[in-house]
């Protein structure tokens, strides 16, 4: 009996010591304010940007990107392209387990890629269109076979298409997997109340656990930026994304909080109907590239950024930002030149063209439209703002029932994601209706070439033509604005706008 007492006493002492030792770890819960409510938490079906923020903590992927948009390995330990570029061999990182304890191996990779390709309603099919199949070379090596070389593939695998879910859980749950996702990220799913919160807690078996300092992450969707900020200031949130630019100045003076920012990989622009429907022929801005050039020359991009974004954006004239390695230096940002704009309009024979600018009812789009309207008036344009609900505007754009459309794109790590679907003939996002064989050829070249220099050459050539035809007039690239408590450190600012939890900790 004394032995049991002794053991119990010893155990209690150990327990106490453990509690005391772990005391500094208390309250390592990150309450994160999202700008929208994510859609379904299934990497195969997911369609929203904000869902990817949650995935950053929930689901690891084969690759990730870093601050310079370079591909770094995550679940894949290493990779190698075949000489003809039609096969990608991936060595799977050993020792990785899913949240249900199942192991990650080449068979799991195969399962996931096939799931992305074949599941009903999958949003990844287009991304993996050129992948014909996956071979299991050995238990920890998988080979993806492609029908043609495709350089953007690595970037796709650094996003949802590269996310690996537990095959056992996915098979058991079928299409209800999103209600209870089982992935391999640093945090596992606990619960979700739609439009209210998503709760994740630390997965002790994570392969990179030395980098994880938080115990719990709670994502709270709060659509109104003012309210989101108010929550941060009142202490109910520790972190908010997409802070409103107008709030930056005031928060900078508050020492309780820090602000981090980086230029996005997306862009804000105005799409012109140059060939999507008959309207392209009847309206001067659609049928005459000189009119579009005049429109662009009448814009003062710095002014737009100043007024609309309070300076929290980088001016741009291409689908990638000026500091991006793929930016075509041969087509620099034009300066405002109202005189030349007027001359071009006179040359085109339409000194006072009328343009109907379809504008979604979001606050940014409305501001851009109003500022643009005022600016191009100086050159003689009469812009009519047509406010349209976002859902309706997509429909109208698809049917070509518009002349100009204020539309943003959230951006993809690989430049192909910012240009192919928009400028290649008949692609789903080609609302402009732009179609030129030489551009299609160049775009294909940019996708199949494996060498950075070769791809860059192709993009330079594309830029020279497309930026002269102007199916899209690019305006600027926003800054991602994150605000968080000064007690938090370790944030990496990466241009895709996602917040990685590795390294984040409370001091």
């Amino acid at each position, binding site marked *: 009996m004394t032995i049991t007492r002794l053991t119990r006493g010893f155990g209690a002492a150990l327990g106490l010591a453990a509690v005391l030792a772990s005391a500094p770890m208390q309250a390592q819960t990150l309450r994160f304010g999202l700008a929208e409510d994510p859609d379904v938490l299934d990497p195969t079906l997911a369609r929203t940007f904000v869902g990817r923020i949650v995935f950053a903590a929930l689901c690891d992927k084969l690759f990730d990107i870093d601050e310079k948009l370079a591909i770094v390995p995550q679940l894949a330990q290493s990779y190698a392209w075949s000489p003809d570029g039609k096969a990608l061999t991936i060595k799977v990182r050993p020792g990785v387990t899913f949240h249900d304890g199942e192991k990650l191996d080449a068979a799991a990779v195969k399962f996931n890629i096939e799931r992305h390709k074949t599941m009903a309603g999958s949003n990844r099919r287009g991304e993996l269109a050129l992948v014909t199949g996956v071979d299991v070379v050995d238990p920890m090596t998988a080979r993806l076979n492609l029908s043609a070389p495709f350089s953007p593939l690595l970037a796709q695998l650094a996003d949802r298409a590269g996310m690996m879910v537990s095959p056992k859980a996915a098979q058991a749950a079928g299409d209800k997997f999103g209600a209870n996702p089982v992935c391999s990220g640093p945090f596992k799913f606990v619960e979700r109340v739609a439009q209210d919160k998503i709760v994740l807690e630390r997965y002790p078996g994570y392969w990179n656990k030395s980098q994880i300092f938080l115990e719990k992450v709670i994502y709270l969707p709060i659509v*109104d*930026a*003012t309210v989101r900020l108010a929550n941060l200031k009142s202490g109910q949130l520790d972190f908010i994304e997409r802070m*409103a630019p*107008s*709030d930056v*100045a*005031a928060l900078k003076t508050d020492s309780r909080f820090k602000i981090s920012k980086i230029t996005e990989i997306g862009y804000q622009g105005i799409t012109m109907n140059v060939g999507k429907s008959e309207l392209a022929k009847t309206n001067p801005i659609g049928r005459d590239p000189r009119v579009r050039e005049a429109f662009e020359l009448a814009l003062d991009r710095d*002014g737009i950024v*100043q*007024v609309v974004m309070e300076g929290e954006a980088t001016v741009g004239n291409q689908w990638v930002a000026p500091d991006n390695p793929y930016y075509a230096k041969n087509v620099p940002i034009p300066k405002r030149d109202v005189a030349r704009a007027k001359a071009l309009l006179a040359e085109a024979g339409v000194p006072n063209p009328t343009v109907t600018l379809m504008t979604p*009812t*979001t*606050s940014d789009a*409305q*501001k851009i439209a*109003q*500022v643009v*309207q*005022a600016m191009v008036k100086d050159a003689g344009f009469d812009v009519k*703002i047509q*406010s*349209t*609900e976002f859902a*309706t505007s997509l429909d109208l754009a698809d049917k070509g029932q518009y002349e100009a459309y204020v539309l943003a794109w959230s951006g993809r790590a690989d430049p192909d994601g910012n240009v192919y679907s928009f400028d290649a003939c008949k692609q789903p996002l080609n609302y402009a209706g732009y179609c030129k064989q030489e551009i299609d050829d160049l775009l294909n070249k940019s996708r199949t070439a494996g060498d950075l220099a070769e791809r860059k050459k192709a993009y330079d050539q594309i830029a020279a033509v497309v930026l002269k035809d102007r199916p899209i007039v690019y305006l600027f690239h926003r800054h991602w604005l994150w605000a968080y408590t000064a007690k938090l450190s370790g944030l990496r600012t990466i241009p895709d706008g996602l917040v990685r939890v590795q390294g984040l900790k409370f001091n």
Partner: protein
Amino acid sequence: MATLALEVLPREASPGRRAFVRLSRRRAAMAGLVVVVFFVALALLAPFVAPYDPLQTSWSAIRKAPSAAHWFGTDEIGRDVLSRVIYGARASLLAGLVSVCIALSFGVPIGLLAGYAGRWSDALISRMTDAMLATPFLILAIALAAFLGPSLTNAMIAIGISATPIFIRLTRAQVLSVKVEDYVEAARAVGNSHLRIAVRHILPNVVPPLIVQATLAIAAAVIAEASLSFLGLGQQPPAPSWGSMLNTAKNYVENAPWMAVWPGVSIFLLVLSFNLLGDGLRDALDPRHA
């Protein structure tokens, strides 16, 4: 024979005149009327009264606090808030008046039909009215406005249609109570056509409660327009409307509160005045409620 207590006014004064005198005695209602007239005048005379063009942007004067140059300050792209508030009165008044006109022009005839014709048409109309009333008003308005597209005109139509069932119900109830009065039966007996009876005998009795309800409905319609604009449906920028100004202002509540305060105060004053007026009319037209 004891002298009967006579009314202060001569007996020949029409019911309308008597009602107006009663109304004029109520100070609150008169105050409301004055404010309403003030806003109407402001709306009509806007081009002469507003110090700046409400659409004139100015990059150098963004979100400036109220000052001598801009009494109400400027907004997020440098427009004068006072001028926008003045011009915004047009949109709000229009929204209030037109929606209610739409509701009246559909509601009263349908209500008359239901109350007077009775039986099957009444049953059908009543069920459909019940269905519309069972759907929350704002939801119906949002769905209609989303369906028609975001604009002031469509918001007015949406609010008007959503408000119609109230007038149908009201008209119908009045018709039902008046229908059985002796003078109506007498008119029938004499051989008047239904239409004549409806217009000459029934309608005048329906008018007083309709006026009251219409005035109160205008107040509700102004708020409804502001609500729809707040959600992004309704008057779209750059055209000024108090509701859409509030929608933009909510993003700047901390660093430019004047953008939210003045349109909100204007809505409040206008709606309050219509409410006061409506209350006064209710008391004036039906002394029992005084």
